[in-house]
């Protein structure tokens, strides 16, 4: 590579080192240090932070994070499939429909979480409507529970599932379904034996694209769960702010990153081409 191109790389390389490389090294070091008297970190080196991850309290939070992410991913898959299929088989307006799916995704996550607060809180639209219609006499507790968190996760990540499913379904040759029908397969049968298996790469990509951000989510459980639903993202935030236990927070962060990277590696290894 000649000098000019090296020079062109320099600012980005420096920025990447300062905002990704070095911060990760610091986090990796902190995860093996002890907690300082006034917050911060201190010697000696220790494995105590990692041992604490196995504590039932924290192991429970990690397990709940996996479960919540898995449930949200499953719901996204079930909801997104008919939509992706309809768009892939639509005769017109494919691009418009895809743009409609992507549009909410591009608007602020914070605003989208707040929109659900506006709908679900005690004085929110849903409770107000139900009370005006005399269907209920006092507000239903719709917000600040697990249901609201999973709903928010599904709402925020649905586009990530629709796009890869669409990409996989769009490539399918419609003649395959006709062939299945000619050979006597009923509609459902053809769906199970032809459409679904051929969509497998799209399903895998979609599951990954939804599960990974759901696993590390912070904003949605924080706003829609109202502090009653501690997931791993909230745990990390707590360790670095109120609890001021940076070494333990670093260990949890690295554990989360390890989970994310293992999941990605499993998929990248399968497809033999870069995911990004």
């Amino acid at each position, binding site marked *: *590579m*000649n000098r*000019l*191109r*090296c020079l*062109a*790389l320099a*600012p*980005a*390389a420096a*920025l*990447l080192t300062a*905002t*990704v490389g070095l*911060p*990760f090294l*610091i*986090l990796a070091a*902190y995860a093996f240090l002890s907690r300082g008297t006034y917050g911060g970190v201190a010697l000696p080196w220790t494995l105590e932070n990692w041992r604490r991850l196995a504590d039932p309290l924290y192991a429970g939070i990690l397990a709940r994070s996996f479960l919540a992410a898995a449930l949200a991913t499953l719901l996204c898959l079930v*909801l997104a499939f*008919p*939509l992706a*299929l*309809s768009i892939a088989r639509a005769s017109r307006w494919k691009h418009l*429909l895809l743009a*409609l799916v992507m549009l*909410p995704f*591009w*608007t*602020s996550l914070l*605003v*989208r979480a*707040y*929109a659900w*607060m*506006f*709908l679900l*809180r005690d004085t*929110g*639209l849903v409770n*107000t*409507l139900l009370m005006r219609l005399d269907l209920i006499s006092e507000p239903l507790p719709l917000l600040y529970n697990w249901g609201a968190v999973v709903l928010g996760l599904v709402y925020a990540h*649905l*586009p990530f599932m629709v796009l890869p499913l669409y990409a996989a379904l769009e490539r399918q040759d419609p003649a395959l379904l006709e062939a299945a029908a000619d050979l006597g397969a009923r509609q459902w049968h053809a769906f199970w034996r032809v459409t679904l298996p051929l969509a497998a790469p799209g399903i895998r990509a979609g599951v990954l694209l939804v599960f990974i951000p759901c696993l*590390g*989510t*912070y904003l949605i459980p924080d*706003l829609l769960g109202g502090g009653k639903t501690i997931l791993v993202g909230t745990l*990390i*935030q707590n*360790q*670095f702010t109120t609890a001021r236990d940076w070494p333990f*927070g*670093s260990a949890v962060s690295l554990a*989360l*990153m390890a989970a994310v*990277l293992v999941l990605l590696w499993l998929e990248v290894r399968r497809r033999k081409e*870069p*995911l*990004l």
Partner: protein
Amino acid sequence: MKRAAALASVALLAFLHAPLLVLAAFSFNEGRFAVWEGFSWRWYAEAARDQRLVEAAGNSLWIAAAATLISTAAGTLCAWALWKRQSRLLTLGFSLSLVTPEIVTGVSLLAFFQWLFRFGGLQLGMHTVVLAHAGFCLAFVVFVVLARLRTMDASLEEAAMDLGATEWQAFRRVTLPNLAPGVVSAALLAFAISFDDYVITSLVAGVDTETLPMALYAMARRGGSPVVNAISTAIVALLGAAILAAEGLRRKE
């Protein structure tokens, strides 16, 4: 089965759009509660009179502008250098930056800045937010610009150099003008991502700097008010315009 799928699709599209549409509609509501009482700009006027909100919006604009400038300049040059020659290390770094959960990026930057400041006596503030934002926008810029470069003909630059241009002149006079829509589209995307960020910003902003999403978050945590509906709608309109413009430029040609 086709009709069932179509029906489910319409319901799902409604599920995706209704919350934001309802929120936007009620930001123009005369009354304070979730009952329609008539059209009014009242809550927008109230937001504009709130000194704290105006200052937070100003901070957000400055931070997003600075982060966009830095990440777009560095990212465009980097994409150009990576166009003809891959770098596994940099690609790995950008991929890592894209898949890292925001909360992990935030705490790692916080730990890094605090460690660094032990030697310099510096404080968290606007500058740390700008650096953090420029960092996480960089990967988006590189990927958008690189995608645009890959649609372009590399031999144009070589032709310019055969005719006596230096490599820099060839970049400046031949590649960059062709690349411009991609660069502007990347910049708009970076602006939107930076302007909207709450999680990372709240961790590296220190105590004296507040951005619009931080103010919005604090108000939402307290239960929200029609003013929050108004700010939310304004943010969505601003980001939506930026993203649509970016998408329009990307699709051109």
